[in-house]
């Protein structure tokens, strides 16, 4: 027999609801913790959402963050943050720093004069310094961007909910959306906990996660619907376990291939995109978890209409009419 790598053995029979108060409870607790984190620690908003200027400097010689700070302090910026960026691909002669300056203007971006002053001051500290990128966003736009981002996540949730409601039943769409909210909250919570840069690309990552997580859930629901038609009398909870066991191999398989691809990007993709990839990778893991432990619990609580072959009893004409049929 040929060798086959199987992370999930054939014919598993795991009771996914056995620990449901722990697993589901853990999910709910994680959601609460995330909300608390977001409100207490806040998010490390990038300039897209907060306004301001970031400058990425590169230099062949090592530098001290303190020296940069001293050079820029004289220019009198109230909100100044300098961080050194590390990446395995940089090697010995590449030293990168990100400098972030809070917004100074009411509508526009940082002025050309200030930018020239900053560049001149840094040149004095390190004559070999180059400016790889300079980005600046005015508070007017950043306010709108954050609003748009909220709308985007909301619109995506609603759109997915509507589609699932059309294709399945409303209970399924509620289950899916609860698990989506779960995924989004946990990912945002992670960004708050580690103070990763939260900007427009993070929103893109969140939306992708939504699509992915839902994709996972839908495959399970699709099979559940099939089983509901096949086994008309077995209890819902049993069918859900059966379905999850049947699709478990696929769920794990896809999570692993996606995880492999994203991990490659995480390691070799460079520091510019790293936070974006972290958001997606975490989203994939959480999405996989919520498929198994969140979405179905909601559907179980809400219950589903069982007999898919008959019309809705409210719509069917009279019960006697059915009875007369052979």
């Amino acid at each position, binding site marked *: 027999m040929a060798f086959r790598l199987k992370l999930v053995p054939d014919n598993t029979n795991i009771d996914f609801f056995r620990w449901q108060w722990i697993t589901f409870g853990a999910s709910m607790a994680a959601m609460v913790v995330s909300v608390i984190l977001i409100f207490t620690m806040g998010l490390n908003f990038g300039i897209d959402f907060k306004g301001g200027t970031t400058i990425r400097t590169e230099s062949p010689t090592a530098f001290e963050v303190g020296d940069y700070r001293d050079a820029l302090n004289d220019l009198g910026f109230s909100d100044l943050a300098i961080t050194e960026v590390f990446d395995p691909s940089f090697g010995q002669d590449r030293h990168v720093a990100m400098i972030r300056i809070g917004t100074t203007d009411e509508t526009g*971006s940082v002025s*050309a004069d200030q*930018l020239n002053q900053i560049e001149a001051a840094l040149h004095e500290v390190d004559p070999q310094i180059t400016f*790889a990128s300079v980005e600046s966003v005015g508070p007017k736009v950043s306010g709108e961007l954050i609003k748009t981002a909220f709308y985007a996540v909301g619109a995506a949730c609603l759109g997915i909910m509507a589609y699932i409601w059309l294709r399945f039943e409303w209970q399924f769409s509620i289950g899916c959306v609860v698990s989506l909210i779960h995924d989004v909250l946990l990912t945002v919570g992670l960004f708050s906990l580690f103070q990763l840069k939260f900007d427009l690309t993070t929103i893109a990552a969140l939306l*992708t996660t939504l699509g992915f997580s839902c994709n996972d859930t839908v495959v399970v629901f699709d099979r559940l619907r099939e089983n509901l038609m096949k086994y008309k009398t077995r209890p819902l909870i049993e069918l859900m376990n059966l379905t999850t066991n049947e699709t478990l191999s696929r769920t794990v398989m*896809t999570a692993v291939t996606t995880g*492999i*691809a994203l991990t490659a*990007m995480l390691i070799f993709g460079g520091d510019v*995109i790293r936070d974006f990839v972290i958001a997606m990778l975490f989203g994939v893991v959480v999405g996989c978890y919520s498929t198994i432990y969140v979405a179905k619990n909601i559907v179980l609580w809400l219950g589903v209409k069982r007999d898919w072959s008959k019309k809705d009893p409210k719509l069917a004409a009279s019960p006697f009419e059915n009875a007369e049929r052979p």
Partner: protein
Amino acid sequence: MLQIDRWKRILIVGLCVLGIGFAVPNLFYQRVESHNDAVAEIERTGVETPELAAARDGWPSWLPSSVVALGLDLRGGAHLLGEVRVAEVYKARMDALWPELRRALADERATLGAIRRLPSPEGTLKIEIENADQIARATEIVRGFSTPVTTLTGAGQQSLAIQVQGNTITIQLSDAEKAVTDDRTVQQSVEIIRRRVDEVGTREPTIVRQGADRILIQVPGIGSAEELKALIGTTAKLTFNSVVGTGTNPDARPGVGQVVLPAADQEGIYYTLEESPVVTGEELTNAVPGTDPNGQPAVDFSFNPTGARKFGAYTAANIGQPFAIVLDDQVISAPVIRSAIPGGTGQISGSMDYEEANQLAVLLRAGALPAQLDFLEERTIGPELGQDSIDAGRLSSVIATAAVVAYMIASYGLFGAFASISVILNVILILSIMSMMGATLTLPGIAGIVLTVGTAVDANVIIYERIREELRAGKRVAKAISDGFDEAMSAIIDANVTSFIAAAVMFFLGSGPVKGFAVTLTIGLVTSVFTAIFLTRLMIIWWLEWRKPKELIL
């Protein structure tokens, strides 16, 4: 489901071959790009230099030559988001209305009495007449200047909103007219910015209107956003005015219809000028950098016939008088007219270096912006950083693909290899569709491709898992495969539609890199469904027909 018509097979293979064909130019990115540039250059100028011909011949012209456009974050360049101060135009309109209106009202001075303009907020015009009982007549005259506005939404609206109070009339543009004006202002601005950027000759600039009053400008390959701002941030409104006097007091009170403007290169010198210009920059036909008699950089310009006539008549009548050349409310120079200038040509000189003279000539040729721009967002990405991102993206795509292929083969054996071929072809198809569509690849877009490598196998995994189950249920090989494909279909479609919804939302609400990501993701969804359902199935059918297997270990 295991029979596929011959024409369908040809179609599937044909699409794949076509896809590979259109993706190939991306392997020779630089060469194809210089080929395209050379072709465009030869077409534009009609001159074929040896260098251009060599660049053109670097890539055979019968091969596809469209390549994926690289976003700013990969190529490097500058990105600006500007907001047009549309309200400036309201003010200009009102200021232009006043002299005409004054003339019309003055004709009936006998009944209306004295007329004067009162100070009022910008964009409004407040007029006071002496005889309050004649206000109805005055309003009627003002109304004569209002024209009906035709808009899509409402007909019958007037261009002026007129308010009467006691013996004053306040006039401003009506909301309908403002909307029409805003639209025109932004469109004109886009047009003029495009002309200015084109003059500099960078490749594929993006200049699009965004929302009501914003303009997005992306210029790849330009050194910095500051450079771009210098080019498009200047209004470049050029006028020639007669000089009333010179002084050092910025607060000097000008007479009616006069303005005090500073000199551009002499600090502390202020000119009092007639406000209505003799000639404006709109009547220029050409402007080129040149040198003045002292060998200093200058700009030579020429007027169109009307401008030339006005300029000639004015200079003939004012010999010995100074006149001012005004650019964006600064007096660049105020030479004394030595003789009439009938030919309609002239020179602007002042303290400028050659670079500035060149820039001014560009601005004058392209025309003045109707209103000033505020910059809300600016980004500069250096070309090295972009190249680093491309390299990192390429490396991680290759590693990701290799790892996924290895995992798939380890899990499904031969069928895993089929899925792997599909995945690799999927990436090729994404690139070729993006090349054909002229879609832009951004750094998040590369991440999108890598993600697609991971998710594209999903459809195949769903199918294979299903086939496994069918086999376990004791079905024959062909039947199991056929049922596996059939049963998996609805799950595949549903799963991809949800991803598609998320991508569509990103496309409509996102901007720049996020939009690029959404495009890549959407194309990836379509191609992955195609490769998983059609291509993998075709490969499996070929294998079935060839080997006629009795049993299958999956």
